[in-house]
């Protein structure tokens, strides 16, 4: 149990600035995605094992709460992807690029690129949500 405490306290109190923040974001987004992915594999498996249950799951996904969750999920996938590319590229092809200064810069760029990729998707999904659930935009 002390392992748990030590690690969690370390996660919060470590002062590594951008590197630390991107580590935390990578973990949080990754855990979020794998949680949804597990549920998603099972709900898609319902189309074969129990089609009625599949439509029940889809109904839940169409609710406003899950719609908002979906918008955040898309951010998680974009951020985890861009940051994952950064890690994979540096680790595999340019390990000498793990300098603190350049890492700070690339961590900021990563967040920026993820946000730029996410915003149009987020707005479009919000539009779909308002249209189907609240009758906006002629829905």
């Amino acid at each position, binding site marked *: 149990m002390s*392992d*748990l405490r030590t*690690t969690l306290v370390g996660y919060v109190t470590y002062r590594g600035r951008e590197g630390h923040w991107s580590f935390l974001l990578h*973990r949080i987004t*990754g*855990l979020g*995605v*794998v949680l949804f*992915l*597990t549920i998603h*594999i*099972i709900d*898609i*498996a*319902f*189309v*074969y*094992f129990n*089609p009625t249950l*599949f*439509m029940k799951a*889809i109904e839940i*996904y*169409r609710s406003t709460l899950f*719609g908002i969750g*979906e918008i955040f*999920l*898309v951010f998680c*996938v*974009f951020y985890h*992807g861009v940051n*994952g*590319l950064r*890690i*994979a590229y540096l*680790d*595999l092809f340019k390990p000498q690029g793990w300098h603190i200064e350049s890492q700070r810069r690339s961590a900021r760029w990563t967040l920026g690129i993820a946000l730029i990729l996410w915003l149009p*998707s987020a707005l*479009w*999904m919000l539009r*779909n949500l308002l249209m*189907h659930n609240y009758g906006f935009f002629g829905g």
Partner: protein
Amino acid sequence: MATATQTARRVRIKPNYETIAWKWMRYSAFAMIPLVWGHMILQDVIVGVHRIDLDYVAMRWASLFWRIYDTLLLGFAFAHGVNGLRQVLNDFIHADRARKIINWLLFLFWLIITLIGGAALIGGVNQPFPLS
């Protein structure tokens, strides 16, 4: 400061399971950028959950291309995700025995969910046509 001579020495270390897992996380990242982003942008943004139903899945899986696409997604993404979960858990659990147990549990978890997903991919939409 005295001058020091630097000598570089290449060391070959036999790759073990952890090396393979480490590489897997990184190489699968490159494969998943088009796979996962493509899937997500198409299904969550362009099509949207309000237009997805049994008919839609049946239509999509009528094409072998999309079934292969989804098989690749399942294979790459879920293995990447479960190994990521294992890495996170290894930060919290340090005892060898406990790690061994976690490894086995996660392996079984990965295997069972992958088999369930794979069965659906092969079986397809389990309803006679036309869909009601």
